[in-house]
């Protein structure tokens, strides 16, 4: 059983997905989806344990050996990411029961869970696979299901947002496919380990450089790297709350993983950062992303859009970490994958609680909410402090590594930008908090209740993790550090 874990990680949600369509009752299908997701979490935890103890796991699908067969290869980096994705899903799904009833038409709820499980399958598959084309397949699965999930939002603009994401996402996926195709053309293999041994020798050819460009832009679109981020604010703002929380915490992280895998495992750090001046290019893009996205966030009227732009800025931090090409920088980027997932997941869950009670996410409607929904707003305060990077929260840990990496490289302006990003975050967080705590609740609205426990508890679990992993970083930093050394140091 345990030897089949990598396959089970993907197969279980994959088979569970169409089963959801057969289950009509929304409580049963919800319970089933939660069970499946928790199974996926257990499998991911077991695999991480195994990888930390005895090194990468290699699994041949259908017992056909690599490089002809499809290989699933789980090393420290993707075991960590599997844990993140499955973990976020496991916490977000119990929350979904009440939230989904409010936001999605009753006859579509089974379809929602089916699409959700497909999306989970896709994301887990992207992470677990060791085959470049297989990665593209799962990328398409997760993308298409996420377009469906986004379009289920109540606001009619959800449809146009999903369509915009579909167009841009398809362009991105196609670029990745072209990149993979060009690599296949030059090396004759699709297996990542095999590519890793063959590509460096032919790296300085125009074809391979073109492949690199296509892969980077394709992944960049999926991870909403500035200026390819235009699909993200609308998609996050109009999707159902559960979808926003789940996608914000997972989809972009998986795209960053794709970038990491192609950069460091296949192309190799020396090609990217020494032969090409790519460190500087990535750094410029991410620095601009941090400043522009944070500034735009300050002027948003809808709190979901505000946090969406905040996500673009936070993703830029991850890419900034990658651009340093040092252990410290890469550790900072990888740990921010985890930290941001936990922070943003918690924040969007809290906003979902607000939407449940208020029916709106406009900042002007949040007046006086501090007294009406104290626990929800307290969750937003703590999540916001983490975004700013106050010590004892996960956000501080990420910022520490990023600034340290900048100082080590002597890139002082970059250190300044990271700090400026924190201060800009303080401004937009404070906008929301001032409205909620200093403005009076309009008396004509009548009193509203706090969110139900089924939604508050998952929110506070994630916010609690934001604090816990800001104090006890042994797991997250230990794994991130190992992953960074592994990526930069070569194969193990």
């Amino acid at each position, binding site marked *: 059983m345990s030897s089949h874990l990598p396959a089970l990680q993907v197969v279980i949600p994959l088979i569970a997905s169409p089963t959801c369509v057969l289950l009509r009752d929304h409580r049963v299908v919800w319970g089933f989806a939660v069970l499946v997701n928790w199974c996926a979490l257990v499998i991911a935890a077991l695999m991480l344990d195994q990888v930390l103890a005895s090194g990468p796991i290699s699994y041949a699908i259908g017992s056909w050996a690599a490089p002809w067969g499809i290989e699933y290869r789980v090393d420290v980096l993707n075991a960590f990411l599997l844990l993140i994705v499955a973990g976020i899903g496991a916490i977000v799904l119990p929350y979904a029961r009440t939230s989904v009833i409010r936001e999605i038409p009753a006859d579509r709820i089974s379809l929602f869970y089916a699409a959700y499980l497909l999306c989970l399958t896709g994301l887990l598959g992207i992470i677990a696979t060791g085959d470049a084309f297989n990665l593209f397949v799962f990328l398409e699965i997760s993308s298409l299901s996420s377009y469906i999930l986004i379009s289920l939002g109540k606001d009619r603009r959800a449809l146009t947002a999903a369509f915009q994401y579909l167009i841009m996402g398809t362009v991105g996926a196609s670029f990745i496919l072209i990149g993979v195709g060009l690599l296949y053309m030059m090396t004759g293999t699709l297996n990542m380990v095999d590519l890793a041994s063959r590509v460096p020798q032919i790296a300085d050819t125009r074809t391979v450089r073109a492949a690199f460009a296509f892969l980077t832009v394709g992944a960049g679109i999926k991870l909403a790297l500035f200026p390819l981020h235009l699909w993200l604010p609308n998609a996050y703002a109009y999707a159902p709350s559960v979808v926003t929380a789940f996608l914000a915490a997972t989809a972009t992280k998986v795209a960053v993983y794709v970038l990491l895998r192609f950069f460091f495992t296949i192309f190799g750090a020396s090609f990217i950062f020494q032969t090409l001046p790519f460190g500087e290019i990535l750094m410029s893009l991410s620095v601009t992303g941090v400043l522009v996205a944070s500034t735009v966030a300050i002027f948003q009227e809808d709190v979901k859009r505000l946090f969406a732009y905040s996500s673009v800025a936070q993703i830029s931090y991850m890419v900034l970490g990658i651009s340093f090409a040092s252990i410290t920088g890469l550790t900072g980027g990888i740990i921010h994958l985890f930290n941001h997932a936990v922070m943003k997941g918690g924040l969007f869950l809290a906003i979902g609680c607000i939407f449940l009670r208020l029916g709106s996410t406009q900042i002007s409607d949040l007046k006086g909410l501090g007294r009406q929904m104290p626990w929800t707003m307290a969750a937003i305060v703590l999540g916001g*402090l983490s975004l*700013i*990077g*106050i*010590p*004892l929260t996960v956000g501080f*840990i990420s910022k*520490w590594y990023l*600034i*340290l990496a900048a*100082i*080590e490289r002597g890139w002082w302006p970059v*250190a*300044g930008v990271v*700090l*400026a990003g*924190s*201060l800009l975050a*303080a401004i937009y967080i*404070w906008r929301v908090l*001032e409205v909620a*705590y*200093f403005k009076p609740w309009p008396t004509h609205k009548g009193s509203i209740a706090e969110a139900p426990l089924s939604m508050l508890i998952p929110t506070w679990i994630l916010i609690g993790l934001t604090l816990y992993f*800001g*104090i*006890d*970083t*042994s797991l997250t*930093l230990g794994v991130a*550090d190992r992953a960074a050394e592994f990526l930069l140091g070569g194969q193990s």
Partner: protein
Amino acid sequence: MTHELITQLAVVIPLIGALFMWVSHNQPNLREAVTIVTAGLLFVSVASLLPAVLTGARPSAVLAEPLPNLPLALEVEPLGMLFAVVASFLWIVTSVYSIGYMRGNHERHQTRYYIYFAIALSSTMGVAFAGNMLTLFVFYEILTLSTYPLVTHHGTDEAMRAGRTYLGLLLFTSIGLQLLAILWTWQVAGTLDFAAGGILNGKASNTMMGVLLILYVLGIGKAAIMPLHRWLPAAMVAPTPVSALLHAVAVVKAGVFTVAKVLVYVFGLDLLRALNASALVVYLAGFTIIAASIIALKQDNLKRLLAYSTISQLSYIVMAAAVLAPLSVVGAALHIAAHAFGKITLFFAAGSIYTATHKTEISQLDGIGRSMPWTMGAFTIGALSMVGVPPAAGFISKWYMLLGALEVENVFAVGVIVVSTLLNAAYFLPIVYTGFFRTSKKEPSHSRTLVREAPLPIVMALTISALLTVLFFCFPDVPLTLAYQLIGDSP
């Protein structure tokens, strides 16, 4: 009870107290009792560490290890001991005062007030006992955040705007400048532990050290060095007990305490003597002392005047430390305590006047000394301490600061101390004169009897703090011993 446990308890006791306050929010008398008991317990535990520290022991404890090789560690050393003892004792006095003030003014959200007050004191203890710069930074930030609800307590638009200045300036300096300095120190020195003689010797060039020093000094916004001082007058919008304990004792002293720790334990006095930037710090602080005093001269609002006086007095501590003479460093350490007693008395008096008469402007205070003799008496003692005249505490610390400046022949510092003493007299003594010797032109003489002293808890508190100000002058041995230990000597 081991010293290690007590050190950790110092940070934890106020938090537990806050929990009990929350639980007893429906019973005000129980809640107030919890506050007093918590404050009492805190002082007792902190004071129990005093004998050990006086003999040279340095109790320490580790709380957690968020970053590899960078624990959240506590270590009790003389300066921190002095700060913690003063702050914890004054919390007891302020709690008594708060009861009278909050109830006398029918303030709302009192439970929230007491809870955040306790959290602020917990972080103050954390700052006082921090064993490395990271721990100090963590508690420094928590202090900023936990005092924000206290500053904006009244929830008005004015409070919100003041809160923006407060938080904006403090976070800008701490995140933008201090954190950068800390990370740079970590990268250069490989450690953030506080060590006698500093951790930066020979690690980088003198110019870089100079820049680092300025980053620290400007980054420690709580020390209110100009031009980063605006948060302190803005914070006067808070209820007066907040201004008294936090913005005369805990928050501002956390600022100058941090500056002193950085100067003595991160850089080390010997390294600083080799840096030109040290002189720059002296000039910055000296400028702040004079400029703040001149601004104070023009204030009519009593709390604003006291705020600018605080800014000026804080820079005494920074300047005295930056002069780098052993005796002036002793003076700086003493002034952390002396100023605390004097200033808290002054703020208590201001709050007392407001509670009894709703007057906030100095021009309204004609003859108030006759109807509120205890309040104005205490105010007088506090004012004498600010000027630096016996028998008030401020005399002792100023004496040492002056001696130290003369010893190293720092003409600028000596001049600043002399001129500012005159300026202090110029804006404080008229208030005393107005209070006692001028007759109110607006009120007919028979209505004097309608103004009575403030409620008893308020009067008790300000009498105690005034007494402490005098006692410090009469019995300065313990603070002196601790201050001398800072420079590795004895009185």
